[in-house]
């Protein structure tokens, strides 16, 4: 393309740090499998600098007939050390695009847009925080945990999945948090059952005052309802099919109650982190929700 086309973000900054997303072509530092996930690290210093826990990036994928980017939560950024200026995502291979990404190697270049969306708001006071992650949603929770711990918070983590190998990084969870609890549907790791089964215990033990979540929509609904019942504020990173990721297409909406009315807000710019108490979970119609309903119908 013409050299006249300079994305704003890649222009030199005269006045220090700027806000907002960038578009850049970033080198892959590495892709490695871990459990049932892949971790992909990109050289993206400007994005790493701007990123906040809960934000995401979108990647262009070069697979048959795909015209849209794939969104991924930021799992970590490094500002110093040998990996300074890098940004990591953690993903599972579900379809064409993620399998293509899993096949990338060091030095490949990816077309990246980010950081996008509203991250997790951090509490003003040093209150104990309960972080709940499902599947790959654990990765951004660990990013948030490191940030909160660095700011002096007590952090307790609950991670859940169907089975043990779908729980991301138990080692890191134990290392960073005051307590780490795991649940699996099949009982292969930690408590058999769902994350919501253990929240009462953990919260009582930890003196939880704020709840954060990232994972499948049905899990977020459960955690939000639990938090509301406990009178705790909650912030949930939601996931909806996104065509643009930049706020221009209106495909990614989530129903939210505001001033007594239900409004559809764009998960990509007004979220992905939303106040769990405000989301109208009953009206959410994500594919995961629909699947859950079908499973329940079936028995």
């Amino acid at each position, binding site marked *: 393309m013409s050299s006249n086309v300079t994305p704003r973000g890649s222009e030199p900054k005269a006045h220090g740090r700027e806000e907002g997303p960038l578009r850049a072509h970033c080198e892959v530092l590495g892709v490695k499998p871990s459990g049932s996930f892949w971790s992909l690290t990109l050289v993206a210093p400007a994005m790493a600098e701007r990123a906040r826990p809960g934000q995401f990036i979108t990647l262009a994928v070069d697979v048959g007939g795909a*015209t849209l*980017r794939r969104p991924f939560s930021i799992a970590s950024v490094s500002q110093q050390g040998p990996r300074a200026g890098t940004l990591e995502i953690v993903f599972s291979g579900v379809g064409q695009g993620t399998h293509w990404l899993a096949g990338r190697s060091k030095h490949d270049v990816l077309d990246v847009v980010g950081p996008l969306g509203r991250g997790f708001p951090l509490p003003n006071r040093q209150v104990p925080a309960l972080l709940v992650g499902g599947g790959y949603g654990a990765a951004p929770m660990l990013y948030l945990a490191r940030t909160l711990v660095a700011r002096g918070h007590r952090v307790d983590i609950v991670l859940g999945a169907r089975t043990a190998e779908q729980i991301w990084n138990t080692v890191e969870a134990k290392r960073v948090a005051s307590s780490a609890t795991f649940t699996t549907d099949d009982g292969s790791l930690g408590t058999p059952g769902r994350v919501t089964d253990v929240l009462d215990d953990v919260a009582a033990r930890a003196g939880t005052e704020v709840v954060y979540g990232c994972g499948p929509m049905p899990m977020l609904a459960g955690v939000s309802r639990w938090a509301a019942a406990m009178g705790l504020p909650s912030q949930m990173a939601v996931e909806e099919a996104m065509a643009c990721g930049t706020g221009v*297409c209106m495909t990614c909406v989530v129903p939210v109650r505001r001033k007594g009315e239900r409004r*559809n807000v764009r998960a990509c*710019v007004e979220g992905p982190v939303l106040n769990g108490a405000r989301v109208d979970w009953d009206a959410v*119609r994500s594919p995961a929700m629909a*699947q859950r309903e079908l499973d329940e119908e079936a028995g």
Partner: protein
Amino acid sequence: MTTSSARTPAPPAASTASGPSAAAEPDVDLSVDLGGVTLANPIVTASGTFGSGREIDQFFDVGRLGAVVAKSITREPRQGLPTPRMVETSGGMLNAIGLQNSGIEAWLAEDLPWLRERGIPAIVSLAGNTVDDFRVLAERLRDVEGILAVEANISCPNVEDRGMVFACRTDPTREAVRAVAGTLSVPVLAKLTPDVTDITAIAAAAREAGASGVSLINTLLGMAIDPETGRPRLGGVTGGLSGPAIKPVAVRAVHQVHQALPDLPIVGMGGVTTTTDVVEMIRAGASAVAVGTATFGNPMATLEVLEGLRAWLAERGIERVADLRGTVRLPG
């Protein structure tokens, strides 16, 4: 079709003077006429794919585009359809948004002032479910300043005609267009659906009713079903197909309408992603070209094709993009 230079807003400062690389640009006349108003260049945004303009302005100065076409607005705010609202398909995507928007008052209060302040040529897109909706919307715009043109999105269901889309038949097309064009003095573009037996007849009806031009094409009606669950993949059941997959249909529609009505300005769109897609549309008969779905895959898409077009013309010694319009070379 009336022509009045008074209509043309003062050239937006942003689109002529700014841009880090203005000095390096080759000397090509990119200006085009769109039914009586002049655009600095032919690249515009497709309604509903560019938000308010502010979102993409984070990536580049959107004032460099020929115009920003706003998301269709309605009389009242609308919450639209339930999710899922999109499905990726081979070479394209389906969407079913259901015209979610904050209503005309919010647009006038929040979005237009930003465009005006930045000097960005604004084309407002109106949608309604009755002829009266279109009339009321047009009346509300009558004394509003800073609007370059109006696009009447008549590819929406007409509740007074068993829910059939206005632009599916000539009479409702005429009535809806007349409601807008009869009320306003800025140019009115009628946005047509390709899901018709004869799009030239609809375009002719729109022109008769006072449209200064037509925007071709809106999405094609499509559907996808989850094989496992049997549920439609869209909350709205059916949705609109857009993206590169539909480009051949769009080029054909632009070509047909241009052959039938050579003087009618056309905003061509449907799958435009690359510089050569823009050239193809202009050769088929488009006066201006809108980029839609491509912006989702690449927030810089509009700017990239604009700069690509400038370079393409310069390399070939074509001095005026307007000369390229309709230059398809038919056999025989």
